[in-house]
């Protein structure tokens, strides 16, 4: 059972290689699949109609194989596209992750996902102009328009619009993108909805010249009434589950999902001391159980806090990573603070965790900004017992409380993670060793909770009951009404 748990898609540290996709890109892994893609990171900034999206690029494969396709609502201008420092994701993650200090060692990486090309066209530089002409000619014949072409940092970027999915698909394949066969069903709706396609490749030489080892995150900004993330594209060739962490910034308050439930992570729970060394595993299992219990199609709130640099309130409690500074906020795309922003620039930060699979998330994620300023954090509490001589009466009372408290902690652990806590009796019983025999004999026998992992009840069962009761009740009312009406 335990082994099985280890094999589940790992949330915190590395994971098994698998074929799949995340957020908005096609992705075809190689046979030896060195690419991880179970987790992606997105920074989302929303201010009025303006949205800035930063996509983290923790690409593990050969950068020549890197490519990405993202639907965007407008033709982006060159100044709308930036390449930013990847450290920003680590900082935000460290600041906002569910807390137990030791957690952070286990969580070094965000992941992102990309379309993977077979191989970049490695035509000699002299042929580059020829290549562009070729690309454009073939694009026109396929109903694909290259709206813009930019070289930014290590990336070559195209903005495409298309008339129909078949042409776009063919063009992408012709130009070296391996597109899954099922892509049409997603590309078509985006094209008809007047979305453009932001297509990215890496220029290997420029990257080497710049001396970067890793691909840096790409940031795009645009004005649009839509506030959404197109996750369907990334699910075109994957049935598996993918994790996405969204770090959102607004002026007013929390960001929440408008077409799926946004559910609070279970928080402020007291758990046994021995979880300390297994916190990564604990949180992974807790999240999985929470997500299954809540019926899978949910977005989980992991953190919400006011991070306005000029605000003097507590920025976290306890702080496990430093709150974002003005420079980091600016880097993330929050352009209303800092030297150019006004003094009244409030910044509210929300961290959302989405685990999505094709079956549970038919629709792209729609978001809305709310004025909700309520702060929230995922926090798990360890309580170390008192040390020293506890033989006095008050000390014995304390030990009795401690004994029952530990029972509760173990129970909580089983409820949160579904772990089999049968062996955890020792953790409770060790308190007994410090008690006088009379006290020890007065204790209730410990009832160790035993839970079967998984099997959480969905929110549906209660609904059915209420519905059924209502139907029975309605029928009764109806019959009563008729039986009355007859004699009248």
């Amino acid at each position, binding site marked *: 059972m335990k082994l099985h748990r280890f094999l589940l898609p790992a949330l915190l540290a590395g994971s098994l290689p698998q074929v799949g996709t995340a957020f908005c890109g096609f992705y075809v892994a190689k046979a030896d699949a060195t690419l991880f893609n179970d987790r992606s990171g997105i920074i989302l900034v929303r201010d009025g109609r303006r949205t800035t999206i930063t996509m983290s690029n923790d690409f593990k494969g050969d950068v020549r194989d890197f490519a990405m396709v993202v639907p965007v609502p407008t033709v982006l201008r060159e100044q709308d596209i930036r390449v930013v420092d990847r450290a920003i994701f680590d900082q935000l993650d460290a600041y906002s992750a569910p807390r137990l200090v030791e957690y952070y060692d286990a969580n070094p990486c965000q992941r992102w996902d990309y379309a993977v090309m077979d191989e970049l066209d490695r035509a000699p530089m002299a042929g580059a102009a020829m290549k562009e002409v070729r690309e454009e000619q073939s694009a026109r014949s396929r109903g694909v328009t290259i709206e813009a072409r930019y070289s930014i940092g290590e990336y070559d970027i195209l903005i495409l619009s298309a008339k129909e999915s078949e042409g776009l698909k063919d063009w992408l394949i012709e130009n070296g993108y391996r597109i899954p066969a099922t892509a049409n069903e997603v590309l078509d*709706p985006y094209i*008809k909805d007047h979305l453009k396609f932001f297509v990215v490749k890496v220029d290997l030489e420029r990257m080497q010249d710049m001396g970067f080892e890793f691909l840096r995150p790409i940031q795009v900004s645009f004005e649009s009434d839509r506030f959404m993330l197109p996750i369907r594209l990334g699910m075109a060739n994957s049935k598996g589950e993918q994790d996405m962490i969204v770090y959102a910034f607004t002026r007013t308050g929390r960001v929440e999902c408008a077409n799926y439930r946004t559910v*609070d992570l279970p928080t402020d729970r007291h758990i046994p001391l021995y979880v300390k060394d297994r916190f990564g595993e604990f949180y992974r299992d807790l999240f999985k159980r929470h997500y299954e219990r809540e*019926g899978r199609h949910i977005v989980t709130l992991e953190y919400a806090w006011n991070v306005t640099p000029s605000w003097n309130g507590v920025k976290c409690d306890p702080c496990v990573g430093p709150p974002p500074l003005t420079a980091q906020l600016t880097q993330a795309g929050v352009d209303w603070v800092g030297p150019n922003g006004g003094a009244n620039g409030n910044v509210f930060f929300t961290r959302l965790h989405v685990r999505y699979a094709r079956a549970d998330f038919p629709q792209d994620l729609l978001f809305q900004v*709310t004025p909700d300023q309520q702060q929230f954090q995922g926090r798990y509490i360890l309580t170390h017992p008192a040390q020293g001589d506890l033989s006095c009466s008050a000390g014995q009372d304390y030990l009795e409380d401690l004994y029952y408290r530990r029972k509760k902690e173990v129970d909580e652990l089983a409820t949160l993670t579904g772990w089999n806590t049968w062996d955890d009796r020792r953790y409770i019983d060790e308190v007994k060793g410090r008690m006088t025999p009379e006290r020890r004999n007065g204790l209730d026998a410990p009832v160790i909770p035993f839970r079967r992992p998984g099997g959480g009840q969905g929110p*549906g069962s*209660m*609904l059915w009951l209420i519905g059924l009761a209502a139907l029975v009740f*309605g029928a009764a009312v109806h019959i009563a*009404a008729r039986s009355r009406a007859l004699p009248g």
Partner: protein
Amino acid sequence: MLRTLMDFFRRDARHAQIVLLAALLVHGLLNLHWSLQLPRYAVLIGSCLAMQAMAVRVLDLPLSGLKSAVITGLGLSLLLHVGTLGTAALAAVIAIGGKCVLRDRGKHVFNPGNLGIVLTIILSRDAWVSPGQWGSGALLLVLFGSLATMMLLRVGRADVAFTFLGSFGLLQFARTVMYLGWGTDVFVHQMMNGSLLLFSFFMITDPMTTPNAPRARIVWGMLVAAVAFLLADRVRIQAAPIWALFLVSMFTPVFDRLWRAARFQWSPPVRNTQINIDPITS
């Protein structure tokens, strides 16, 4: 015992409505794990009651109006989120105040809950609606549908609920599946949204603020659906049906003038003669 209970529910359709809305609130708290905000619910329902009591006193309205105030308070508790309790009180004051002031020939123009939500969002900038809070699923349809249909059949407003849902569904289907080419699962997900269903069965169907004549209600329901669709699809407003109802309600008096019929009353007149004098069908 059962007979007494039946009598209680048959005497006034609002009794069933109160029980249903309270059950939905309990469902949200127990099953959907909404954060328990007792002060918010207390202020919303309490302020609605206080405002209504004042209206009963000053305007000499029937005491039974307090039941409507409880319904408005519960409806607001289910839909409206607020940053501070002051905003909650404001919503209640607007809802019940608007009911007493904005009247056309003695009939209030706006659904009190709807007016309270829309104006509080506009005025306070501290209130919002979470359209995703119910999630989406066929179970919700079964629940809302079965519960509410029974109740609506009692007050004769099932026509509005189904006209609205049908027209809105048709428009969404045409756009999402037929035009854009998404799979039907996207359409089903849109239509099974709990907030949409709650709105369809509990807000738009308010017998006091829907047009009096059945034919007018059909046209009116279709209009709300069309406006809601445009707001959602073109302007990309979340919780579009609530805004659409607010906009279309402004014209309800026009509907009542074009299609004439008697107004709805909560407590039916003498039961045995009701059929003969029921003016709605005439």
